[in-house]
């Protein structure tokens, strides 16, 4: 029993780190634009596909393919913002939400048309190969790498946010976008940067996800995206560290629920949303508790 719990705990941390990576992107975009970018989960999918094509079609070594995929995905995020979100930046929340849903469906179907609905087998990078066995506890190597990578990226991001000019600009925009632009900061560039970072992180999440579950298809981003969003809200929407914590909490609790109540395994996904609803009812500012609600109507 103890080994099972330990095993599940490790699974949970691994899953949680994946959610964290994607959640950070959600929370950053919400922070600066007050919009829920529904298309974010699909950005994860874009990252996975680009990495896949780098390796299989362009024959790049895995590290080159991954880096290229991450950068290009970041640019895709910037493009998405420029084309679809920037023109309606000052419109009502409803409009932004609807547009985001439109972009999400567009990405999913674009990839469906371009690459077909048949799932493709994602090649696993050599360093992620293998399973460690310690005392009946099985650790896929990638499960160890994932939290480490997530932690490293989180640390870098927090450094950027608190110690660089652009980072401070981002946090300033999150507080008050109009005043920030009055202070002479080019708001457009900072927002593009936010999307670049968020999308790149989602791409990392997509690659790691596809390494653990090596089958990619155009609709793969939907569920992880929604759960990452739940994680972001759980941690306190708008707060980067909160998103990471929310991701971990979600990943671990999901796994523990299944471990202790195996007959409820099918409801595992529902759990994330029930948790989300409860949090929104009783502590909408989430675990980290920052008040960001601003009226934009």
């Amino acid at each position, binding site marked *: 029993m103890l080994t*099972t719990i330990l*095993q*599940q705990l490790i*699974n949970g941390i691994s*899953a949680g780190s994946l959610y964290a990576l994607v959640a950070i992107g959600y929370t950053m975009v919400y922070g600066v634009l007050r919009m829920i970018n529904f298309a974010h989960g699909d950005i994860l999918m874009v990252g996975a596909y680009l990495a896949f094509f780098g390796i299989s079609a362009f024959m790049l070594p895995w590290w080159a393919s991954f880096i290229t995929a991450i950068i290009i995905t970041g640019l895709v995020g910037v493009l998405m913002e420029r084309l679809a979100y920037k023109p309606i930046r000052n419109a009502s929340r409803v409009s932004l939400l609807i547009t985001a849903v439109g972009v999400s469906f567009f990405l999913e179907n674009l990839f*469906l048309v371009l690459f*077909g*609905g*048949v*799932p*493709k*087998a994602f090649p696993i990078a050599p360093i992620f190969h293998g*399973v460690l*066995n310690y005392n*009946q506890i*099985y650790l*896929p190597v990638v499960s160890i790498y994932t939290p480490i990578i997530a932690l490293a990226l989180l640390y870098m991001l927090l450094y950027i946010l608190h110690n660089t000019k652009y980072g401070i600009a981002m946090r300033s925009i999150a507080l008050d976008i109009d005043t920030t632009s009055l202070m002479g900061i080019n708001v457009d560039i900072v927002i593009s940067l936010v999307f670049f970072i968020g999308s790149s992180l989602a791409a990392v999440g997509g690659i790691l996800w596809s390494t653990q*579950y*090596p*089958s990619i298809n155009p609709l793969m981003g939907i569920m992880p995206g929604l759960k990452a969003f739940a994680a972001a809200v759980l941690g306190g929407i708008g707060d980067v560290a909160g998103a990471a914590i929310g991701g971990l909490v979600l990943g671990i609790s999901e*796994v523990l629920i*299944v*471990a202790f109540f*195996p007959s409820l*395994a*099918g409801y*595992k996904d529902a759990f994330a949303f029930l948790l989300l609803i409860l949090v929104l009812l009783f502590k909408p500012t989430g675990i980290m508790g920052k008040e960001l609600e601003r009226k934009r109507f």
Partner: protein
Amino acid sequence: MKRTLFKTVFLAFLALSTVGFSISKVFAASNDIKVGVVFSMTGPVASFGQSSWQGLQVAKEIMPTALGKKIDLILVDDQGDKVQAANAVNKLVYDNKVDAIIGPLISGNVMSATPIVEKAKIPLITPTGTNPLLTQGKKYISRACFIDPFQGKVAAIYAIKNLHVKTAAIVIDSAQDYSVGLAKFFEENFKKLGGKIVAKTFIQTGESNFSAQIAAIKPANPQIIYMPCYYQEIALFARQAREFGLNQTILAGDGADEEALIKVGGKAVNGLTFTTGFAPEAIKTAIGKKFEAAYKAKYNKLPDNFAALAADSYFMLVNAIDRAKSDNPIKINTAIRETKNFQGVTGNITLVNGDAIKPAVIKKVENSKFVYATSINP
């Protein structure tokens, strides 16, 4: 200005769709024999649809006409979803006014299409729907493949007699009628031969994380795992099972018979064995050899179970139309149901109440390739 732009685009959209719609109607030649095809081209079993469509097209090239009339194949994607399957069949029957339908490929989808064709009296041939309920009490449903009571029995016999095991765990896909049915038949026959089911667990199509199910099976220590699911879930399950130290042989059904199983499963699926309807090495008929050669020439690979059965459905249909000497759907259906000793790609086919009595083939995955093991006759 913006409003006019919007209105222009809106009208353009309407115009475009109306034009497209009219084109498709105007140019549908009326003298052809129209055959509706409902395959899963996208979705969780997209590989089935892709293979079947390839097989169907090769078959059409070999026999493009029946009764001297050209055969028109109208393909609609059912996305692997039973509701979409019903919509597709509705459209083919009432809008395109087809004379016959080939497909859907999976049993659940055939079930939702059945009431429609029974009411409209249009013959339907499913290449690979194996659940016995599909034809029970129905007049217009036929199939080119065997049925699951037979398949489950073959699997049980193989497990007990060839693999020499006495205990098994079963993994069922609760989203598919196919999986639920086949698991039941395996269990019945396995128990009858003295075997014991030590664990039973459920997955759902589209799931990718099976750690909970694997954790449930491990302590029961079965000698084999019977997993009558589809290739995608089997492959992912096999990977994770091997990672967690669950190394027993996995036995499966014809839902595993897809290249994608090996591509996604990698080394984890070596040794996986399954029952299916066709293997290129088992071809005995002239049409079979002709089909194999044409398929290889066109697609540069050997045909698989789905391609072969789709081709057989097509050949059976053409044969029935020729025998009925008419393109009236009801007459075609009668002729289909009367198919006897028809030489198909997958062997000798005789239909009894719409079900095909045929041998089953056992295939294994060795060194990341499908290898033919043996055939078992009914």
